[in-house]
């Protein structure tokens, strides 16, 4: 920023890259809610059981006996495969809420619902059994499908020696890029909030579109090939329903706060899409369906930005192949949900657990609302991704995770922009992720 401006204007051209949207399995074609969730759990168990058997034999030897729960005989060392169910005392239950005989006020919303008396149970198609032993109950959550090795003792509980997770298939190799190519992740823009200062956001837009910074910075940001808005473009305040409770004569002129928020988002998006392809994912507070998988925000909400073909409204979770890299991620609801029901402090560790177990959102549909799927469970990770992200987390963290066979995956947690004024810049050539902070302070 301190060099003299040059005589002739230098232009930098933004390179294009290959792109393929692989999220078709997250789109809900028929909206039938006449099904129970048992079918989803059945599908999950049947699909993951086969691959778990392979992983179990690889880890513990081919002679290991793999039993269904009804075949268990006491005192015999064997392996069983099933779904975790974590029995928690403090978990909010709808039955407790509607139970009239107790006359209880609904349980206050807590940050976490774990307690020391939680027990872990393994369930398969017919039976369930309590697990004890070499297993960390506090970091496990309901819905993970695992294989456990151990034996059933006299007290009827299964003493665990070791656990094994499904191994993911090898991804296609990462293409070797000669030049730097960046993807910019940002989440939790939080527009639509009253009296909010948009300076940080405008700085971000200007930097990416090349209107800020020295030549070097402009050159660097001209290599940003895609922006991913990982959810929550609108703020929680837009969900305020108090206007529904006020009298009509007081509120007839009041416009919904969502309308203002979406207009602001449209303005920001127009500036961005005129330059670079943008993928916008819905989040918890965005105007789309509330259950997972969230459907793309409708294009009619962004009339100005829609004029450009570079606006890409996508689902949450989102999977795509960008410049040969397989990117998959969510707007953070699965990670936040698991955080409430385990004692894991580190959000990145939670993300790592979901990758290890091979399922993006294990707590769906137990505590995380989701659609009752029948034909397939779309949250199962079939292949190891190259980049796995979760938006709307508390801070930026990144880790290059490696499994036993040496396959690598970059884990990213993207912080909320409205709180941290930070976005994440990822270099596809070096798989290096850095946080870019746009904080600004005004003298008051």
């Amino acid at each position, binding site marked *: 920023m301190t060099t003299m401006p040059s005589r002739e204007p230098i232009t930098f051209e933004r390179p294009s890259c290959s792109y393929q949207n692989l999220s078709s399995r997250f789109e809900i074609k028929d909206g039938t809610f*006449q*099904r129970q969730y*048992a079918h989803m759990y059945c599908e999950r168990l049947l699909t993951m059981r*086969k691959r778990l058997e392979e992983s179990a034999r690889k880890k513990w030897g081919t002679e290991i006996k793999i039993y269904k729960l009804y075949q268990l005989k006491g005192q015999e060392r064997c392996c069983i495969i099933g779904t975790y169910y974590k029995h928690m005392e403090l978990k909010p239950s709808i039955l407790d809420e509607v139970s009239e005989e107790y006359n209880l006020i609904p349980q206050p919303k807590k940050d976490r619902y774990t307690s020391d008396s939680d027990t872990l149970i393994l369930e398969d*198609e017919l039976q369930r059994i309590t697990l004890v032993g070499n297993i960390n109950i506090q970091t496990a959550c309901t819905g993970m499908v695992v294989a456990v090795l151990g034996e059933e003792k006299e007290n009827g509980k299964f003493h665990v020696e070791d656990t094994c997770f499904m191994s993911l298939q090898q991804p296609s190799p990462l293409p070797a890029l000669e030049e730097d190519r960046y993807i910019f992740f940002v989440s939790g823009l939080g527009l639509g909030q009253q009296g909010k200062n948009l300076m940080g956001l405008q700085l971000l837009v200007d930097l990416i579109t090349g209107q800020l910074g020295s030549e070097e910075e402009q050159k660097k940001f001209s290599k940003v090939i895609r922006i991913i808005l990982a959810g929550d473009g609108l703020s929680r305040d837009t969900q305020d329903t108090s206007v529904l409770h006020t009298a009509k004569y007081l509120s007839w002129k009041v416009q919904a706060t969502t309308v203002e928020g979406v207009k602001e988002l449209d303005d920001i998006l127009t500036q961005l899409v005129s330059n670079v392809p943008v993928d916008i994912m819905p989040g918890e507070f965005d105007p789309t369906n509330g259950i997972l998988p969230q459907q793309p925000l409708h294009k009619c909400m962004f009339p100005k930005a829609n004029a450009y073909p570079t606006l890409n409204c996508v689902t949450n979770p989102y999977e795509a192949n960008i410049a040969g890299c397989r990117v998959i991620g969510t707007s953070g609801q699965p990670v936040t949900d698991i955080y409430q029901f385990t004692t894991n402090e580190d959000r990145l560790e939670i993300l790592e657990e979901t990758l290890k177990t091979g399922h993006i959102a294990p707590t769906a549909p137990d505590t995380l609302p989701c659609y009752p799927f029948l034909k397939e469970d779309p949250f199962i990770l079939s292949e190891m991704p190259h980049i796995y992200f979760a938006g709307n987390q508390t801070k930026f963290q990144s880790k290059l995770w490696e499994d036993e066979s040496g396959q690598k995956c970059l884990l990213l947690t993207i912080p909320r922009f409205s709180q941290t004024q930070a976005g994440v810049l990822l270099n596809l050539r070096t798989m290096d992720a850095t946080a870019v902070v746009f904080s600004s302070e005004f003298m008051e």
Partner: protein
Amino acid sequence: MPREQKQQDITTLFNQKKKITSKYFKGTLNENSVNDATDLSQTRTLKRKEADMTLLKEFDLNWEYGPCTGITRLERWERAERHNLNPPKDVKQLIQNHQEDEDYLQSLWKDYHL
């Protein structure tokens, strides 16, 4: 002196006529109509339908193919096929030959809405 009260309740008020009904056959199957020659074919189809229903009921209640309520039998059969659980092929034949009959298409508990 207490008057003699004849024991009378609802069950003795009306004449009882024994009816033989089968839920698969609308109408009554009385002893008189069985003797009628044109109704012989009806009884044959009825018996065949009962045999089919037994086979489909066994398919529904088989735990290996997962939960059966809330989905059609064909969807359940296809799910079992997809996961290589070898569901019996004649069940699929039966479902496909009787596409218009809800008793074949839906599971045993179709009348109990979720």
